């Protein structure tokens, strides 16, 4: 435990308005602290430069899952465990449930939150690809108001996001439009549980009369941010899920991702596996 604990402060605001007020009064000074599964790891390694936190764990305004005809809206503090337990999510959003089930372990799933995962902005996170496929939108609030932004433009670069210091994520909204689509999720990690992703592939497609009418593909760990594979999607739209479409789509995918060599894996591995997972996805569509 390498942090100098006396230097760290945390307060518990009584409600969301109070939290936002605190953040607005000293922008950038107070950071929200949810389940701690990312921040505490940094703290223990002595690598948490930020010193003042607002405990938002108990803010009811950030909890709860609601469904309308077109969307499911999740509070930012929805934990991975809660995602897996929700009936509509289990039925219509299997990619998100798979991502939740494959993040960390039972213990981290009880404390890790969707909002925290997004705010941590790691390109290796497992929920973001699923969120991209489900056309997620993020509700950002501050003392000054609230706005919805599409999630796929939320991350501006490696570990960066379009979130001002006085803002926090209140809700995440996913579209129910992919219910009934064929869906595919695969995380390739260092082992089968509690693994950081080497590559994560989430995809859904609507197949009509043997052709890919529409498709959404997103990947993690192959770029500085979560990546929507728009070029591969373009190639596949309207095609039959067969060999010709596959090879063109694989080439497009290989060109639009930017994997790196790091401690866990190599660019070459990630690129080749991305291509292979696309092939597996197409097999699912054809089958």
């Amino acid at each position, binding site marked *: *435990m*390498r*942090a*100098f*604990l*006396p230097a760290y402060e945390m307060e518990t605001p009584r409600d969301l308005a109070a939290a936002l007020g605190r953040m607005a009064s000293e922008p950038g000074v107070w950071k929200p602290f949810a389940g701690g599964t990312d921040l505490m790891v940094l703290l*223990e*390694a*002595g690598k948490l430069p930020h010193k003042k936190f607002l405990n938002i764990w108990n803010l009811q305004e950030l909890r709860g899952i609601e469904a309308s005809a077109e969307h499911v809206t999740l509070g930012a503090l929805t934990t991975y465990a809660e995602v897996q337990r929700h009936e509509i999510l289990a039925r219509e959003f299997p990619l998100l449930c798979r991502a939740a089930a494959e993040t960390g372990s039972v213990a981290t799933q009880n404390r890790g939150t969707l909002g925290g995962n997004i705010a941590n902005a790691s390109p290796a996170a497992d929920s973001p690809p699923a969120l991209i496929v489900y056309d997620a939108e993020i509700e950002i609030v501050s003392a000054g108001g609230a706005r919805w932004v599409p999630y796929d433009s939320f991350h501006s670069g490696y570990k960066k996001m379009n979130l001002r210091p006085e803002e926090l994520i209140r809700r995440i909204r996913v579209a129910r439009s992919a219910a009934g689509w064929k869906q595919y999720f695969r995380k*390739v990690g*260092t*082992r*089968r*549980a*509690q*693994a*950081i992703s*080497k590559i994560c592939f989430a995809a859904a497609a609507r197949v009509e009369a043997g052709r890919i009418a529409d498709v959404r593909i997103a990947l993690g760990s192959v770029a500085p941010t979560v990546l929507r594979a728009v070029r591969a999607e373009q190639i596949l739209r309207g095609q039959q899920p067969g060999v010709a479409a596959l090879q063109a789509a694989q080439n497009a995918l290989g060109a639009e991702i930017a994997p790196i060599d790091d*401690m*866990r*894996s*190599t660019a*070459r*591995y990630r690129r*080749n*596996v991305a291509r*292979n*997972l696309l*092939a*597996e996805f197409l097999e699912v569509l054809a089958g």
Partner: protein
Amino acid sequence: MKTRVIGKSVPRKEGREKVTGRARYVDDLSFPGMLHGVTVRSPVARGRIRAIHFEGEIPWHEFTVVTAKDIPGKNCIALLIEDQPCLAAEFVNHPEEAIVLLAHHDKYLLEEARRAVRIEIEPLPGVFSIADSLARKEIIWGQDNIFKSFHVEKGDVDGAWAGAGFVVEGTYETGAQEQLYIEPQGMIAQVTEAEGVTVWGSLQCPHYVHKALMILFGLPRERIRVVQTETGGGFGGKEEYPSMIAAHAALLARKSGRPVKIIYDRAEDMAATTKRHPSRTRHRTAVSRDGKLLAMDIDFTVDGGAYETLSPVVLSRGTIHAAGPYACPNVRIRSRAVATNAPPHGAFRGFGAPQSVFALERHLDRVAEAVGIAPEELRQRNFIREGQTLAVGQVVKEKVDMNALMGRAFELSGYHAKRKQFAAANSDSRGAIKRGIGFASFLHGAGFTGSGEEYLASEVAMEAMADGTVHILAGSTEMGQGTNTIFAQIAAEALRLDCEQIKIIQPDTAYVPNSGPTVASRTAMIVGKLVETAGLGLLKLLMDGGFLQPGYTAADFSRACGEYIAEHRVLKSFVKYEHPRDLHWDDQKYSGDAYGAYAWAVYVAEVSVDTRTAEVRVNDFVAVQEVGKVINPVLAAGQIEGGVAQGIGFALYENVVWQEGRMVNAQMTNYVMPTSVDLPAIRVYFEEIPYGRGPAGAKGIGELPLDGTAPAIANAIAHATGVDVRRIPITAESLLEMLEAVHA
């Protein structure tokens, strides 16, 4: 021979404490006035220390600061030799080498202080591979970077090539492996005028620590005391390293006048302490047209890191095991342990044999392929039998039937049918999942090599109390493998009592004799035998004195103890190891009777490889071994299961990423061991041919599973994919490239 208690799965002696959280590990202990200690380490692999700066806004006057100058005796951690400094004085030779020690009561401030010490080091060029060390790009140790070398010669290797049907060569490599005991290293030390130096901590060998502290402090034996606390795993990682951390805690305790506790966090433990020696083995094998081994020329090198520590002994075991359980008339083994600028490598379960056995068992599958016969046929044509000689010239005097072990392993695993079935299924190129089944056949010598046990001269004492409770006093440590329980069983068997009446005294050098280190698969076979003998000795005292008659009950025994003690004050039996007179070993020629006994095994691994991702899954694992006598079935099976799990990690998951001698993936997130969903059912089967010199016939088993697991998996992957595996760990990245090459 029918036994009462031996052979039964008596519950673990300290089980209740462990399942209730009451077992006390070193970090659970706290002493009044205790300070915490931390270590400031070298950031570079090699260099000359220019200056040490104490910076930051730290109240340095509150701190105890120790450097090499504060060492009262010799600045070394004594082991085989005295080349490793306790604290670097002028030169550093590996990343994370300890330079400064700090103590303070506030452990958070202590970390701030650690960050505020800046060590100015003028870097020197380092050596980071076996190849570079042998090439002598820099001389970093001794005259030639070589800690030790061996040369084994049997028969006439040079004359065999001409008449060979086939000659097969190959080079095989294994990487470092971190022991990853779940309890990190830790020590508490106290130094007082009255008692001298006392340390409590997580360790395997109290007397190793004792000796090292004597030399570091320049104090006589009775002024140093080492106590083992409940130890959360060791696997060899706590064989030699605890002497270093004990020395550090003791130096801080001496200077501060207060007890000092040093507990490593996981990152420090992984980066700074010992790992399994990386290895490189070259095989050149002559075989006849019909698959008889004619000659084996083996070249075996291990990377020892920056200081000698135990490298000569690791090399020794790896060398002796390099030619396996086969009868080959002509064998040459040339081996060496070399220095690199990495933290010294050290003991890890298997201790050199996993490295050389991986190479051999992978190589022999390739030899079989060259000959055009099945891998098991090659083994069957060459398995050693009683009366034949191993590579070092030891005549096998045990009843061994490797063919029978193999037959049983194959039957249990469905090997033959699966071999055919998988090959057929794999030939359909559309399937993304390829399946394979492979095996390894091997042996593992128990006890110290050659004259090692004679040199150790281990001792055990047994003392009975007036109420009939019997105490076992031994320096052997419990670290999960079951020492406490099997010693109790052995004593209970010898004394015809129940295990509840036997108490194992906590290993404390003030009270227990030196039973040798808890390593080398020797605790059951060698020390257990001493326990048995001590028990019989205790009985003899009672019976010769007329206090006890044959056919006694437990109540008779207790009464007899009371009466004996009333008359003689103490009822204690003391035993010292006697080396069997028919075991002869020549240290110069490195030949003769290497081990008193061997365990023999055949392991079978079934794998599936997803060719899309090169992920390997072990689907089934069968481990068959002949071990003399199983003292406690649950504990023995637990040893094999755990060892196989570590072997699976060694083969597939555990990859140390090095950058100029530093482990850069020193977190559990990035150094990956198998979880409960990564492992198959591990199916364990024992054969028992009692070994006359083991307690109730038991031989050693602790390290055995590390030898055969990785090569069985590598051979299974080769069967599944056609990939010629030459190194472990088999990472998905490397396997994907090899798969692409096979298909190209």
